[in-house]
């Protein structure tokens, strides 16, 4: 097993399945079933869903990679490819490892390469022939690796609870057909992974909830929508209210309003929606409201490519909102970090009363991966409060610029003001007061930097002469590329992007540094050039909406560090 490319993955146990078909054929669900199958074998799993912005038709696929070792990305070199339709067959021809098995729908393709199965005709017998097609995925896999039929049936029934009889029958039909056609079974080792897997957005949602989130506001926008859906379904249980208002502008302003009532609030969106929140973001800076913004990027500009991945919003996120005010921007490099970091960010923002951003991308938001987190390790910081009944000033000058909070009901008025104001929160245009309040807010920026200096702000993986700078979900691609290729290199990933932990990053700068990112304008590399004087020998970038394939990336890295 391994990769389709010249460079062969060094992980002997790597096993990848790709299932492709039309939207509405249950491709995503098929991926889930495969993931579950691997998980039950104690294997580590990474699932990436590639789909288009449409509800039926088009071409979708799920790539599910697994191994007995911890792994960080899906692969595009597959050991088993299941093509439910013709388009899929054509698209994934190249995605096969040398020994890989290619299954195609022989009702749509005559004399294809690989193993033809008359999937469409087989499915015709059943009530929902189109929807049932996806069940073929896991059935083929089970047959190929020699899983017994009973186990297959029970897995199918747990993943597809509706229409059990039909599913069982179809699944058995496919299984038998494959056993008939494939001579020998492939070997699949069991592992000792005990973790469950989750999509990044659910992890982010759970991280925020564990740190005390009260209310989540969002307007649907791919790839952030599943956070909203998560809270809408599970919020009752977790004590998090989910609200879907008329627009992103309403979202952001409501979220600020909620903080005034004392509620911890978060919003989530993608680039276009985040753009609409610019004014409110600035308002949060001015009134000192700790709203947490989740920005999950997709290719831009404008509406871009809604269901794909990119890192083109970095500069925008770092400079969001007009005027001078402090903000914290952080980006998780994997699922576990997404959990802890979201929790930390919520606490940090409440500590410093300023808005902040968890910046991520479709690749992390919507991919699923095994994850081992311990919610009890979440640090929660209680914000500074004014406990007395008298003497309250919302914008009290303090040494660190942080004024104690107070929430209604309150005997004394608590005045949050989006115009420039005095300590009480009354509007001012007096020069000394303007200057003093600017300094107060600016102080927090300084204090936040000091705080971050005591925190873990940069992840370093591996070691070696060669240094690879990356961030966000691209970290997953880089780590998997190194893991599978055996290339020796040190991966440096800033978790915080503003303030940027230059003090840490500078330690790693050398003349054998490269940058890996997903932006045509190489925004991340530019940031490092600007802030730590990095002069990368090469910038590896991908900007076609797809995450890197680890083996392809490994080749590029190898070339770059030669």
């Amino acid at each position, binding site marked *: 097993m391994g990769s389709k490319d010249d460079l062969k993955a060094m992980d002997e146990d790597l096993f990848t399945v790709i299932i492709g078909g039309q939207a509405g054929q249950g491709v995503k669900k098929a991926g889930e079933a495969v993931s579950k199958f691997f998980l039950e074998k104690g294997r580590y799993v990474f699932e990436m869903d590639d789909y288009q912005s449409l509800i039926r038709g088009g071409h979708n696929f799920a790539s599910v990679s697994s191994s007995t070792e911890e792994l960080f990305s899906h692969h595009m070199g597959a050991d088993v490819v299941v093509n439910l339709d013709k388009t899929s067959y054509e698209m994934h021809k190249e995605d096969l490892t040398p020994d890989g098995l290619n299954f195609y729908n022989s009702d749509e393709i005559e004399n294809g390469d690989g193993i033809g199965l008359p999937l469409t005709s087989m499915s015709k017998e059943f009530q929902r022939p189109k929807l049932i097609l996806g069940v073929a995925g896991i059935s083929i896999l089970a047959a190929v690796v020699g899983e017994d039929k009973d186990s297959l049936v029970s897995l199918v029934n747990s993943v597809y609870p509706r229409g059990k009889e039909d599913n069982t029958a179809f699944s058995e039909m496919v299984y038998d057909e494959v056993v008939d056609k494939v001579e020998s079974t492939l070997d699949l080792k069991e592992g000792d992974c005990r973790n*469950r897997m*989750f999509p990044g957005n659910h992890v982010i949602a*759970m991280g925020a*909830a*564990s740190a*005390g989130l*009260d*209310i989540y*506001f969002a307007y649907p926008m791919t790839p952030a929508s599943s956070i909203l859906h998560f809270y809408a379904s*599970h919020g009752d*249980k*977790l*004590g998090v*209210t989910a*609200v879907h*208002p*008329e*627009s992103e*502008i*309403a979202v952001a*302003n*409501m*979220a*600020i*309003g*909620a*903080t*005034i*009532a*004392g*509620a911890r*609030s978060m919003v989530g969106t993608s680039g276009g929606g985040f753009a609409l929140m610019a*004014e*409110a973001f600035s*308002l949060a800076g001015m*009134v000192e409201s700790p709203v947490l913004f989740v920005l999950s990027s997709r290719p831009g500009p404008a509406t871009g490519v809604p269901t794909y991945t990119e890192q083109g919003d970095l500069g925008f996120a770092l400079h969001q909102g007009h005027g001078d005010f402090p903000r914290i921007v952080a980006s998780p490099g994997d699922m576990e970090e997404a959990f802890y970091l979201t929790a930390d960010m919520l606490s940090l923002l409440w500590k410093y009363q300023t808005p902040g951003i968890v910046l991520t991308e479709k690749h992390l938001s919507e991919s699923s991966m095994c*994850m081992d*987190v*311990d*919610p*009890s390790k*979440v640090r*929660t910081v209680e914000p500074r409060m004014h406990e007395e009944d008298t003497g309250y000033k919302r914008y009290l000058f303090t040494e660190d610029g942080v004024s104690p909070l107070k*929430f*209604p*009901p*309150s*005997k004394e*008025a*608590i*005045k*949050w*003001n*989006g*115009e420039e*104001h005095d300590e*009480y*929160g*009354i*509007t001012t245009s007096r020069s000394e007061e303007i200057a003093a309040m600017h300094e107060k807010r600016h102080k927090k920026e300084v204090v936040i930097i000091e705080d971050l200096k005591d925190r873990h702000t940069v992840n370093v993986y591996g070691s070696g002469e060669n240094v690879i700078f990356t961030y966000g979900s691209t970290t997953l691609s880089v780590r998997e590329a190194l893991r599978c290729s055996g290339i020796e290199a040190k991966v440096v990933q800033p978790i915080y992007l503003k303030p940027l932990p230059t003090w840490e990053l500078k330690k790693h700068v050398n003349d054998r540094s490269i940058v890996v990112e997903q932006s045509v304008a190489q925004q991340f590399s530019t940031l490092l050039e600007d802030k730590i004087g990095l002069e990368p020998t090469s910038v590896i970038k991908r900007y076609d909406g797809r995450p890197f394939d680890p083996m392809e990336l490994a080749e590029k890295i190898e070339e770059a560090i030669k």
Partner: protein
Amino acid sequence: MSDDLDTGAENTWCTGCGNFGILAAVKKAVKKLEENGLSKENLVISTGIGCHGKIFDYLNLSGIYSLHGREVASAEGIKLGNPKLKVVAFGGDGDCYGEGLAHLLFAAKRNMDITVIVHNNGAYALTTGQASPTSPKGFKGPATPKGSVERPIEPLTLLLSAGATFVARGYAGRVDHLSKLIVEGVKHPGFAHIDVLQPSVVFTDYYDEYNELVKKLEEPEETISKAMQLAIKTDVLPIGIFYREEAPVYHEELMGDMNPVKDRYKREKRIELIEDMLGVE
């Protein structure tokens, strides 16, 4: 006027401005509400940006001086954060019927339990008198020196169309009457809208006209359609409650009795719930 609702901030409205009438009516209404048992500790305000917004500085009540056009969204957020609070949003006609119109109509649509008071002076006063959504056709301002070419909107019909459950019009020159409307609006369970005819002595000094034309309504109309007929009248300007209806309010429908701030789970409980969800052993 120095009282416990006064902040002591310098008032910079023009002498004679209709906003003074609104301020007085609000203070009266708050006193009245306090007598009725609503502590002002539970009253929270939000304001937009414009001359009207300055009421934020003059009222010694908790709240937020929001953005131009966003006071309704702010108010909704406050209410959802802690449904125990009574929230009043103050807007301008430019602000609330222009820049922020969508928030207003959606707050009405979802019957959000807040009160909105619009200082409707038919102009963008603070920015030197440009035509606003309620300015009459032909209105001259610095952006329409030859007169605005647009017909005005009639806000109450729009709100009624959007599903507002309490719709009223007041007049800054009738302080007592207005204060009663505000009391009723705040007490109304659900979305209450009060459009206030507010002369700007600088740009729209309509006191004489209003004094002549306003006419107090005795009773709200029974149907939305009748209320609309009333709202588009121009020979007289009815003031009072045009329409009122009880309907389920948003936050109760969404969260029942739950209060995000008051009923927040303790850390341990949250951790436990998440552990459960994660399958952590």
